[in-house]
């Protein structure tokens, strides 16, 4: 895939460039701030961009704002955001109605090379990838009484949890060591309980669930 990086730590940027090159991706730009990234994307949109949230000048949410702008102007470009810690607001901002190709990972996840590469592939292919930690936090915020999520069985919660990370039914089955038909059954039960139509595609469903959680 054609990848662009925005990460202010030179050390990490170089590491990412090497890692992606080893995996056979083509890194077309590796920059240190959001404006430079947008300029690079404008030159020729890649398949996916990887953006650190905290970058100069203010070290608050430059990366996120760049990510949102890229989503707005180049909807086909996948965006994988790396965040210092789980910011529910950011996660919710990224998840918009009709988009796929979004990812939100904790920065430290980069060290889990396999998981990071897997997430990057999914986002680049128009899927979704959300950090298990993000999902856990969003779910935890909705454990209150009267919440439809509280009606899910533990198994259904596991399925939703895994699905929300952007996995397909097949990979959910592999993850949880159950059959694919069992996964489908759980998914249907989840959508019934959450009053969600399941006429949409997988990643849409994931985003819908997440949006529901993040609301």
């Amino acid at each position, binding site marked *: 895939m054609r990848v662009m990086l925005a990460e202010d*730590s030179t*050390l*990490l940027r170089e*590491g*990412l460039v*090497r*890692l992606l090159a*080893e995996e056979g991706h083509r890194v077309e730009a590796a920059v240190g701030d959001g404006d430079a990234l947008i300029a690079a994307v404008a030159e020729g949109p890649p398949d996916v961009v990887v953006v650190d949230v*905290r970058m100069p000048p203010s*070290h608050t949410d430059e990366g996120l704002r760049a990510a949102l702008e890229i989503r707005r102007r180049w909807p086909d470009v996948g965006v994988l955001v790396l965040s*210092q810690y789980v910011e529910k607001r950011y996660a919710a901002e990224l998840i918009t109605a009709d988009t796929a190709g979004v990812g939100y990972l904790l*920065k*430290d996840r*980069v*060290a*889990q*090379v*396999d998981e990071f590469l897997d997430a990057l592939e999914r986002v680049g292919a128009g899927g979704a990838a959300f950090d298990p930690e993000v999902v856990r936090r969003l779910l935890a915020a909705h454990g209150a009484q009267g919440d439809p999520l509280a009606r899910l069985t533990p198994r259904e919660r596991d399925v939703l949890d895994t699905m929300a990370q952007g996995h397909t039914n097949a990979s959910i089955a592999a993850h949880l060591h159950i059959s694919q038909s069992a996964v489908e059954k759980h998914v249907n039960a989840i959508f019934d309980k959450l009053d969600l139509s399941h006429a949409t595609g997988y990643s849409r469903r994931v985003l819908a669930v997440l949006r529901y959680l993040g609301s």
Partner: protein
Amino acid sequence: MIATFDVPRGGPRAAGRAAAGLLLAAVTAGVELVLLAVAALLMAYSMAFSRGRRKVPGAVAEGAELLAELELWRLRVFLGEDRAVRYGPLKALAYLVLRVPVGLLGGVILLLLAYGAAAAVRLAVGWWITGDHLDGIPPTWWIVLYTAVAGVVLLFLAVQGLVGVAAMERSVARRCLGPSPLEEYERRIAQLSVTRAQVVDAVDDERRRIERDLHDGVQQRLVALGMLIGRARRAGDGERAAELLRQAHEESQRALADLREVTWRVYPAALDGEGLRAALETVAERSALPVVIDFDVPGRPPHAVETAAYFVVCEAVTNAAKHSGAASVRVAVAGSATMIGVRIEDDGGGGADPGGGGLAGLARRVAALDGTFTVDSPRGGPTVITAELPCG
């Protein structure tokens, strides 16, 4: 504000000044007595005819304040009394009412002195020049001695009286116009509230800086380290994997070094164990610039003072290395049982901003200990940063 004069205490000049001040005091007291009588009439009139709406008529209020101002100037110039004062028209009036008798008393004593001096001269002239003896008594030696002793005693009493009047002048001014103990306390409390809030701010700033240090340094290194190890694992067990592992190992060393740096910046452990001197020597060792330390502090100052002094030096040296373009830094720390002074001088380009984050934080830290903190950094240098910290 009138310029203050440096009045030397003691010495004939000061005595002369004081005498002139007292003479002036007597004159102004006479004038003020008349004015106060007029003011009393005005006040009585306004109380009777303004239906109690106004306590002090404007003319009286302004006059009283003006006169009080004048008297304070006199006290400053002639008696060297210079203190912070805060007063309104009522306080000024009270002061004037109380000081008039004091001023008049001074005048009476001065008159006595003048009378005594004149009598002494007349006596001496009569005895030895014109031969016109007072009461027909010839100046036999014991008559002269007896008169001289009596004269000296009277002179002493009069001079003591003047000294007493001067002291009363001061204390009346202080009592009536100076801040009351309650006001002093209130001012102190206000000051403490400000410094307390500033200390909280300074602590928050430092925490933010520590967070940045950890995030920008150590955490990035650890993520990079994890990536290297991850890549090595994906590479299998060939030569490349070995190479990546070697890099990972080096990276882990660097991460450790970074962590050590950050922990040192958070708080130098040496400060607790070995004291200020050892901690400052470490600052000198770690500095990119050559730092000369001149350390002369007997014993160990209180812990809070040591810590503040350490951070002042540390920040100042870091700033000099980062921004000033200096070639070397001189640090002097001198102390006594009651005070520690810190002075950091660099030969750089100057222009340091005392309102900048680091220096402002230091100023707050020092203020919290009731110390003073100054930054002198003209364009073109040199920059001198001083802090004085009271011990206990």
